[in-house]
């Protein structure tokens, strides 16, 4: 319902370009530092863990491969989405929720503005676009984190690590690695806006919907991840 109305909003005037750019800035630039930090350490930990296992098979040259596939297929999209839910989704719910309980949403409608177009659309567009971008940054930094560990602690040559990373990734991984964050971004936006606009019960209500927004987003991200993974596997096995 919200999605249908939002996309209908795209085709009608006015389109709030400035609001969308602001939201892209808040969501994208705002979430970048924690995404980079998280990505780096996840990559580093992955390298540590997998290298240990691989070493027992004498296969530590495959470290880069495992780091890259884990990151691009799963951890990059899921963790970035969870960070987005915790940071941007909660922020959206809290902001829209406060506007709802202080009658600012009603005031907006009374003054002739459609809140879906003015508030929901820009946030949805921003999340849809920024989630894959952030994920790519997270993936890259993660691979870098893995490299740092591989070359320092594991004493792997850079060329071995990088060629192993390179071999690991195929077209389907990249496709899945971008499809997932797009869907997750949409989930965070819809859940965040919906919880916000449905807030009742004053400031206590705002707290309640914010918590609920984060919990529901994360659950939906994990559940849809399962089905998206199945989809990507199904697509990759058809010739």
């Amino acid at each position: 319902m919200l999605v249908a109305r939002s996309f209908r909003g795209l085709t009608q005037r006015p389109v709030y370009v400035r609001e969308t750019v602001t939201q892209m800035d808040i969501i994208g630039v705002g979430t970048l530092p924690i995404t980079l930090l998280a990505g780096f350490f996840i990559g580093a930990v992955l390298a540590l863990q997998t290298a240990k296992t691989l070493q027992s098979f004498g296969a530590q040259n495959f470290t880069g491969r495992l780091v890259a596939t884990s990151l691009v297929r799963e951890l990059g999209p899921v963790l970035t989405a969870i960070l987005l839910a915790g940071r941007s989704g909660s922020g959206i719910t809290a902001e829209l929720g406060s506007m709802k309980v202080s009658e600012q949403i009603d005031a907006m409608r009374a003054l002739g503005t459609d809140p879906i177009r003015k508030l929901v659309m820009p946030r949805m567009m921003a999340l849809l676009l920024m989630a894959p971008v952030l994920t790519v940054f997270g993936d890259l930094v993660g691979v870098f984190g893995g490299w740092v560990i591989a070359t320092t602690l594991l004493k792997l040559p850079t060329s071995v690590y990088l060629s192993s990373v390179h071999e690991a990734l195929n077209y389907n991984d990249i496709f899945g690695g971008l499809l997932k964050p797009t869907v997750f971004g949409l989930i965070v936006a819809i859940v965040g806006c919906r919880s916000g606009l449905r807030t009742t019960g004053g400031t206590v209500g705002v707290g309640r919907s914010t918590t609920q927004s984060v919990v529901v987003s994360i659950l939906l991200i994990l559940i849809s991840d399962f089905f998206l993974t199945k989809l990507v596997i199904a697509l990759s096995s058809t010739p």
Partner: protein
Amino acid sequence: MPEDSRNAIEFRDVVLTFGPQVILDGVSFVVRPGETKILMGGSGTGKSTTLKLVLGLLKPDSGQILVDGEDVTHYKESQMMKVRQKIGMVFQDGALFDSLSVYQNVGYRLAEQGADEEEIEETVQRTLRFVNLEQAISKMPSELSGGMRRRVGIARALVGSPKIILYDEPTAGLDPPTARTICELAMKLRDLEGVSSIFVTHRIQDATSLAREHATIDDNGELAIVKNTRPEQNASTQFIVLRSGKIIFEGDGEALWSSTDPFIQKFLE
């Protein structure tokens, strides 16, 4: 006497429920052009809800709602947007957009309509002058006192010169002089601009001022608030008292003060 026959607002047997809770149970009333309808009732009796029905922010379960002679009961949101241009709403506590400055709040409607900056600036300054808040133009809502927030709320509602203004407890929680200022603004709009309105209030002082005084331009061309001397001056202010979803009183101020209904007596104390 040929008068504009279109009523500003009309409710015909309006019923509104929230789940099992019946808020309005067959409410009918008319706000004539130029009339101020003072809406009273205990808290939670559906006063704010009534105003939201006029704006189409809520839809009734049954009955009809007419705005400026037009039946808007089944209007879609997009059709309602045009009707809302005729209506200014002063929300309880102001409902100012707290991410926007006073200037942007007051100019909001014009900015959304794509007016040019020059026109917005001119209108905002004129409107803020009307509510006596020119000095606050560049402040943020969080920097304002309660009375200032209400007045900014009124200014925002006035932009676009709506013929209908809805006030939701604009004086609640204010000190008497500030409340008085707001009532005088409402009188100015009623008597000098011909605005029709619904004025929700708990305060009996508001009711008395609005019912017994009016705004006029005196011999020196200055604005003056004076006591009503002729009965027809009282006619522009009418009262409705809501209780348990029903209208239990309808009439002018004098009828209200002399009512013998024990509930109304208690209310007027």
